[in-house]
């Protein structure tokens, strides 16, 4: 082969060698796709050039929440010109069930339907509109069965998708009975639609040997591969999944992407034609699962300082009709029902209620946010009961550093940063001063009231299912020095590819421009875990680092041999390599290594150390480490309408040693705003038949530009490496900031509580829509009136 490497003098290379990488670890490198995003050149699955003869698929959804299917007649579908095939459950050649972990999710309804929106038949035609029209022409007859639509109803009937589970430490009953003070309460926490801007989509091309190549927008390529193989009845090695990028995921494409992919594969198999299935927004919102709504009951015992002595919390997740990931999701809610606090003697029960709704699924935080909302509600309630500032009660209950530092699942909380972080945020946000200003404002203003809240986040990092904590990567170095990087994680906007490329760049000491990031592909890196649980960088970054280090070590050994020097004399820096006292470029070394018959390709692998968990005992160390954050939010509430506006939020968040501060801040801000949306305006409403009424952005409102705080100040904790040996001592950032949004919800309640002098906790379930806020206002006004009546009136006999 030819040698076209630019030649530089030793002095020039030596000068370059002294400089640092511009795009290595810790630099605010721009998202690798940004120039393509802004120019419309970034290709999403629906943007791919269509295959000749491609069919478009539409699935007709059940319009009954619970019914036996008496009859399906697809003959009328074929009367619509352009229709290729209409299928039912009976046409699936392999296994019908596409449940992620446990069975329960048939690809097409088999004999019965269990929620409004469940796919019953699928039709493929030459256009989506034709397929839809034909699907609606089919005759489907139902015999209605009694649905269960209410989570409390399901809880009382013990109508569960999985058994209940308990975390227990000490004797909570005794602690409650002997505590100086005690409070009971309940709370509904709403679900959340993912509202990824790109709806679920897959495109499938049949290949030889009965295989399929599947282009799909999924966080979980390996699972889609497995399920496609299963519905076709072929082995996994026949199926290739290709995933370049998603237009947002947030957990909604962890299990829910499999349906369209499998539907495409089945029809491609039956027709021999390429297929595409893209869900229109209404179908996407109706058919796919969401964040679990939760119903919470609590009983808490505490003393006059607000210190918890004991607690019992029942967390009932509304799982919808099937298990999906609800086992782990409710577990994570239980794991996070302490948030940052030592609970004392605690009994935490988790229930997985079965209702006739879409099967609720992973969503950023994975149950954790719901558990944390529960305990934050309790902190507020305790504070109101005692007439204390809620922040004082929160701090009083923080985990200690050397004592009171073991969770209710027996993991020791190490390297706890919340005390310092809270102090820093209290100072930088001027909490005390603003508390006074707000009191003055509220005293002077009869209609508008301001509220303030500072809430912490402690979030456990690692998949709750321990075996998933593994990652893989594949790195090739080509003879021109360019690098091909592939790993098992998926890019959904979070900047994972950019961060992993920075890791590889850092190892080789080359700039990121020479690293080509490629689509996640199951024939490059097999058996991948979903990109979920905030783990993308931790797992795949480490795996890519491992692959790069393997190649680098080969290069070092080769150079030591070739130039007869010690390995310690070889140093890579800024695209150059020092060989004891002479320098060559990285490109030159690669060329020489190629001629020296060195393998320039390697896989990489990583598994998370230290973690273990015995679920039967509810004990262990499920989390490798914790990520911390704190937010202080101020809101203003209109007590005549319940409307509100976010005025200011100060955030301090811990990402360890940041791999990319700009991307991390993007995750913190984006997570925070998504979290505040969940707890304020994002309301899912079903009618009494179980039909989702908020099935589009006209009725389901995610935060718009005016909903971000007018003044948003985000800071990453500086100079605090992750004490654990994570990739360059960074910390995961995908999910933890989501729960910073709880500060907004608490601030709204704080504003409302001002109406009764902060001595009662307004019952404002989540989300705190203007309506719920106004009812909270009315509740406070009545309490205030009752309190201000003369004593004689109060003691009047009934």
């Amino acid at each position, binding site marked *: 082969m030819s040698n076209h490497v630019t030649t530089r003098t030793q002095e020039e290379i030596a000068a370059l060698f002294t400089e640092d990488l511009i795009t290595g670890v810790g630099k605010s490198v*721009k998202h690798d796709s*940004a120039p393509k*995003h802004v120019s419309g050149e970034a290709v999403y699955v*629906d943007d791919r050039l269509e295959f000749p003869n491609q069919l478009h698929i539409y699935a007709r959804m059940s319009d009954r929440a619970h019914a036996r299917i008496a009859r399906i007649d697809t003959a009328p579908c074929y009367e619509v010109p352009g229709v290729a095939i209409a299928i039912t459950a009976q046409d699936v050649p392999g296994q019908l069930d596409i449940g992620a972990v446990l069975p329960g999710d048939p690809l097409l309804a088999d004999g019965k339907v269990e929620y409004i929106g469940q796919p019953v038949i699928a039709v493929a035609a030459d256009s989506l509109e034709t397929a839809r029209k034909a699907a609606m022409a089919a005759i489907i007859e139902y015999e209605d069965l009694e649905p269960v639509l209410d989570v409390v109803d399901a809880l009382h009937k013990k109508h569960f998708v999985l058994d209940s589970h308990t975390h227990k430490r000490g004797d909570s009953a005794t602690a409650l009975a002997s505590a100086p003070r005690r409070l009971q309460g309940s709370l509904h926490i709403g679900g959340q639609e993912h509202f990824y801007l790109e709806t679920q989509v897959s495109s499938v091309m049949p290949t030889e040997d009965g295989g399929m190549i599947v282009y799909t927008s999924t966080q979980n390529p390996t699972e889609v591969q497995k399920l496609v193989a299963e519905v076709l009845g072929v082995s996994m090695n026949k199926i290739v999944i290709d995933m370049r990028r998603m237009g947002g995921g947030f957990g909604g494409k962890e299990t829910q992407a499999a349906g369209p992919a499998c539907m495409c594969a089945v029809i491609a198999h039956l027709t021999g034609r390429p297929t595409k299935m893209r869900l229109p927004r209404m179908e996407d919102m109706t058919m796919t699962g969401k964040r679990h709504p939760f119903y919470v009951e609590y009983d808490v015992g505490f003393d006059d300082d607000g210190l918890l002595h004991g607690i019992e919390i029942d967390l009932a997740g509304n799982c919808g009709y099937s298990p999906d990931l609800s086992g782990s999701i409710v577990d994570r809610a239980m794991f996070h029902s302490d948030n940052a606090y030592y609970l004392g003697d605690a009994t935490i029960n988790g229930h997985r209620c079965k209702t006739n709704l879409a099967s609720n699924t992973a969503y950023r935080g994975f149950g954790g946010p719901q558990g944390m909302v529960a305990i934050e509600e309790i902190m507020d309630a305790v504070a109101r009961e005692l007439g204390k500032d809620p922040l004082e009660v929160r701090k009083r209950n923080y985990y200690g550093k050397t004592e009171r530092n073991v969770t209710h699942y027996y993991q020791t909380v190490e390297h706890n940063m919340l005390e310092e972080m809270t102090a820093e945020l209290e100072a930088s946000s001027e909490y005390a001063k603003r508390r006074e200003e707000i009191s003055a404002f509220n005293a002077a203003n009869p209609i508008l009231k301001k509220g303030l809240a500072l809430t912490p986040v402690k979030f456990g990092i690692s998949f709750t299912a321990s075996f998933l904590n593994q990652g893989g990567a594949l790195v090739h170095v080509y003879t021109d020095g360019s690098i091909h990087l592939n790993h098992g994680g998926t890019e959904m906007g979070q*900047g994972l590819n950019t961060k992993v490329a920075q890791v590889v760049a850092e190892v080789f000491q080359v700039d990121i421009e020479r690293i080509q990031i490629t689509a996640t592909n199951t024939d490059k890196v097999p058996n991948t875990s979903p990109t979920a649980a905030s783990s993308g960088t931790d797992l795949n970054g480490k795996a890519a680092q491992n692959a790069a280090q393997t190649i680098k070590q080969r290069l070092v050994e080769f150079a030591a041999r070739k130039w007869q020097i010690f390995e310690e004399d070889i140093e890579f820096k800024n695209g150059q390599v020092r060989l004891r006292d002479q320098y060559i470029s990285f490109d030159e070394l690669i060329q020489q290594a190629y001629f020296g018959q060195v393998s320039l390709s390697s896989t990489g692998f990583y598994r998370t150390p230290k973690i273990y968990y015995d679920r039967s005992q509810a004990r262990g160390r499920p989390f490798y480490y914790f990520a911390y954050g704190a937010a202080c939010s101020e809101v203003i509430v209109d007590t005549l309408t319940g409307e509100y*506006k976010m005025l200011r939020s100060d955030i301090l968040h811990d990402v360890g040693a940041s791999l990319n501060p700009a*991307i991390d801040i*993007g995750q913190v801000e984006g997570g925070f705003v998504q979290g505040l949306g969940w707890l304020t305006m994002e309301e899912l409403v079903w009618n009494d038949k179980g039909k989702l009424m908020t099935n589009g952005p006209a009725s389901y409102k995610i935060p718009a530009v005016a909903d971000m705080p007018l003044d948003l100040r985000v800071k990453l904790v500086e100079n605090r490496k992750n004490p654990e040996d994570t990739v360059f001592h960074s910390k995961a950032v995908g999910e933890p900031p989501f729960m910073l949004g709880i500060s907004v919800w608490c601030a709204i309640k704080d504003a409302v509580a001002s109406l009764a002098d902060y001595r009662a906790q307004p019952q404002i379930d989540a989300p705190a829509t203007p*309506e719920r806020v106004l009812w909270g206002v009315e509740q406070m006004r009545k309490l205030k009136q009752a309190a201000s009546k003369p004593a004689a009136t109060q003691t009047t006999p009934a």
Partner: protein
Amino acid sequence: MIQFLLNRELRSEQTLDPNTTVLQYLREHRGKTGTKEGCASGDCGACTVVVGELVGDRLRYRTLNSCLTFVCALHGKQLITVEDLKHQGQLHSVQQAMVDCHGSQCGFCTPGFVMSLFALQKNRGDGVQTYDPHQTHEALAGNLCRCTGYRPILEAAEQACCAKQPDQFDAREAGTIAQLQRIAPRETAELSDGEKRSLSPLTVADLAELYAANPQARLLAGGTDLALEVTQFHRELPVMIHVGQITEMKQVQITDRHIEIGAAAPLTDCYAALAAEYPDFGDLLQRFASLQIRNQGTLGGNIGNASPIGDAPPLLIALGAEVVLRKGDVSRTLPLEDYFLDYKVTARQPGEFIEQIIVPRATPDRLFRAYKVSKRLDDDISAVCAAFDLKITDGMIADARVAFGGMAAIPKRAAACEATLNGAPWNQQTVEAACEALAEDFTPLTDLRASREYRLLVAQNLLRKCFLEQHAPKTETRVTAYV
């Protein structure tokens, strides 16, 4: 045939299905997939494109939702999409600003934001030194981003506005104007695929004639509601008559006593006149859907579709506005409150169309207040929309006009409330009595936006707020004042 510029390329389309949206046209007919479908209902902004049109001898650029725009609306205009911004391999300054500020994460909403920012930058006056974040908020309120939380996008907006440089569109402006002049509509344009057709007349007289001859046709103004019948409800619209090319119907004129608004004037064009006269009307219009929708949607359409939750009708009814209806050569004028008969039923006869809306001008003796209450402050449908127009003389209410949206099957006056107010002193006691009366006037529904109890209490509280704002003008009463 319709003709338009696809950026620089002249397109003549004759046989397209007129139910084709611009988004479908771009993605499916032209293979231009940069423009994304996020919802196909005009609520997310991912499909935002910019349309350039001649206003006099100048080019004006506005954003619109391509998912809600039928192709016939492009006739005589220039369509600019995200693919057209990059020039000679260089990103446009708004694109570069988005990259520099880390304004994209998943990137799916990004083309829409880029186009909104492009129009924002284009509409910034030359030589303007200051930066107005409020304009940015207005420009971006119809673009949803699920990833970033918006802060970096706002930063990009500021950079793009402050770093405005002449671009390729400026360089070509004269040529574009000449091209648009050459294809300026000169007669009624028809688009037909043999089954469905759309007609775009140029004069009111032609419209009257066409509609009389085709009373079954659907009138297409901005299309922001009508297009939903196709994209969301999967109906076919066999005949559409597009009123958007009729210059006479797009005028907004201010006379001594009235504001006369052509039924086809986009809401954006109604803003200045209404906001100057009635500040609360202006405030409400700024929260009326999104800028993309207001650039397309018309006051005539907002009345014509007879939605119980349209935001303009309660205000117009309270103000005593009238509609001019026309059928053939015959016109009649009707108080707007008499136009709405029942849920989606109006006084409009077959073949009759709204030509004009006549709004009385403000007088010093009248107090006008309007309020919109919704789950989200921007681009949301009201749970309750209230308007109060009160003539107060010597502390007595001489004439009260009170109208609500979201409280009944139609936008409606509150008769009992008005009766309580009329002739009574303008004080707390009267207001409380009038609040009681509201419970007689309305039995609102519970739906996904609010419960009946909430709607009624809010309606009452808005009257209380109106009173308070007038009696204690220094009291802060609106969270929307915090910007």
